[in-house]
């Protein structure tokens, strides 16, 4: 059994090494003599794709490092070996041998929080990447278009007034989803009838955000003071208070929305060349727009219901990913997901590692994301506006 295990690893290592040497071969020795013009093009293209894979692998390593750091950073000191043995024991179902307090900290608090950070980062970044490509709009994400605010209002109504569209534990998320569909429907109507500029989409999103925020404030004013305290810490965007069952529900939404958007990656590439071109490729643009915005609403509802509004991750992550590997959505979407997860984990690490008091992670992302958003607006090329 043990032998089989190591041989698998050895195989993986050697295949990775072969791939790396492939990449080196393509980049160092550009000896394409004897190949036809077409074959040279194909060889170059394949080398180019490998180079993108290297970036993804690099980001994965950063991802693993961040997860490990977050598992050991915190007030209660636990070394990394203990942390991993606790996690391993839980996964394979062994009896927990470590100190029960350490077990409690790692398994009940830190790991669900880290998974929440990952879910939030992945979901928001994929939603942002898809919206930006679909609307040809570098400023679009669930936050700037009002979809997150809509979801937040829906969830607030459930929390403060107890009014839900369906009963049961999914009541709040379904509320959030339905309210997230309002800005989505608005975007669909605008795109179909008005040929909106990127600025128009964002400004109408902000207008909707005002309305949602006002309604949310009203709900909080008239609600029971105890409920308000809970809602308030949630509105600023926080990873606290998560447990395994909440993480599970959140991941159902994140995985569902992400898979649909990933599936539409090639369609998103075509939509970047304009609606009429996408139609001429055989794409039913109106239907795709609905599918994408419903998926974005699923993501926003699943995330916002648990963590509140964590802004700007969906905006910034795809831009970082685009700088690293270009605009092809088939690579952009998975890479954005990794970048988004890393961004939220970095913000969380900052709170855990450097601050003596607990600050909601949403404050950090807005504090950093706001100025970046402003720089992007100022540096926008004239053609886009």
């Amino acid at each position: 059994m043990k032998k089989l295990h190591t041989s698998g690893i050895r195989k993986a290592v050697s295949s990775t090494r072969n791939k790396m040497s492939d990449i080196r071969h393509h980049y160092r020795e550009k000896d394409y003599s004897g190949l036809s013009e077409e074959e040279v093009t194909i060889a170059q293209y394949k080398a180019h794709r490998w180079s993108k894979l290297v970036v993804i692998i690099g980001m994965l390593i950063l991802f693993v490092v961040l997860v490990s750091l977050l598992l050991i950073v915190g007030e209660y000191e636990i070394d990394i070996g203990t942390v991993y043995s606790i996690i391993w024991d839980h996964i394979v179902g062994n009896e927990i041998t470590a100190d029960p307090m350490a077990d409690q900290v790692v398994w009940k608090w830190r790991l669900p929080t880290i998974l929440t950070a990952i879910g939030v980062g992945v979901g928001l970044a994929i939603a942002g990447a898809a919206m930006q490509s679909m609307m040809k709009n570098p400023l679009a994400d669930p936050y700037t278009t009002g979809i997150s605010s809509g979801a937040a209002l829906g969830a607030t109504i459930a929390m403060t007034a107890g009014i839900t569209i369906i009963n049961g534990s999914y009541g709040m998320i379904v509320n959030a989803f339905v309210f997230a569909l309002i800005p989505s429907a608005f975007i669909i109507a605008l795109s179909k009838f008005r040929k909106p500029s990127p600025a128009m989409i964002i400004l109408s999103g902000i207008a909707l955000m005002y309305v949602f925020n006002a309604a949310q404030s009203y709900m909080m004013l008239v609600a029971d003071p105890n409920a308000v305290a809970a809602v308030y810490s949630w509105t600023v965007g926080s990873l606290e208070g998560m447990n395994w069952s909440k993480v599970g529900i959140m991941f159902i939404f994140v995985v569902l929305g992400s898979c649909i958007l990933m599936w539409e990656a090639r369609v998103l590439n075509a939509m970047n060349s304009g609606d009429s071109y996408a139609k001429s490729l055989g794409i039913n643009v109106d239907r795709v727009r609905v599918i994408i915005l419903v998926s974005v609403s699923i993501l926003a509802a699943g995330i916002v219901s648990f963590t509140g509004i964590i802004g700007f991750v969906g905006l910034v992550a795809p831009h970082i990913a685009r700088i690293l590997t270009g605009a092809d959505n088939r690579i952009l979407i998975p890479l954005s997901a990794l970048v988004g997860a890393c961004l939220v984990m970095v913000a969380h690490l900052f709170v855990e590692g450097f601050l003596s008091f607990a600050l909601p992670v949403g404050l950090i992302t807005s504090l950093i994301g706001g100025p970046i958003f402003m720089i992007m607006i100022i540096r926008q090329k004239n053609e886009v506006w």
Partner: protein
Amino acid sequence: MTTNIEATDLGVSYGEVKVWSGINLKFSEPGLISILGPNGVGKSTLMYCINKILVPTEGNVKIDGEDVSDLSFKDIALKVAYVPQASNETFAMTVMDTVLMGRYPHSGFNVSKEDLMIASKCLKVMQISHLAMRNFNELSAGQHQKVMIARGLAQEPDLLMLDEPTSNLDIYHQMQVMRMLARVAKERGIIVLTICHDLNIASKYSDRVVIFSKGKIFCDGTPKEVITAENISEVYKVKADVTMVEDRPYVLFYDGGFEDE
């Protein structure tokens, strides 16, 4: 076998405004066909009717006997490719990825070896293999146009439609692009339909010229039959004379014929 495109009693109105009506056209011979006519006469509208981007208010378009309105976008995409006028990619990909996009109607999520081969052949045909790994937005207007035509060809259409492929190009690139289109039409036996504003460029390379004017087809035929001084003066309201260069009509324009005189 060449595809057969036939428009019968076609008419389009935007609200109260009638673009044109009673259009009867048939494209069945391979070759380069140019559509000419003043601005706003509805040349692009005709293309939109052929690939269902626009639904005509009267009449119909049939591709190989099947009414376009009964076909799905995908069915049409397997036969008709469209090269839009402007190339405003907000987030540009590499040239190769851009051309591979043309394979969308034929392939699944991942590109196959065959797709790669077809795309690289299209790059070669357009003489832009050396640009394959460049980013689309780093290119010049002439190069953009060639990439977009390569993307259209990668779709392996029976009918390739281009909306003003030579606007924004200098004379060298205008002639080069039209030459390539004429050659592609001949070699692949496909119909290439282009909207053009330069009468002389159209005359030099087209096998057939269709002139739209005042909501109808004004004339339709070979460049020699259609590009005459009378027709040009009538359609464009400018004084013109036609001479022959390389056995093709060549239009000379004079200052005159304007309303403010």
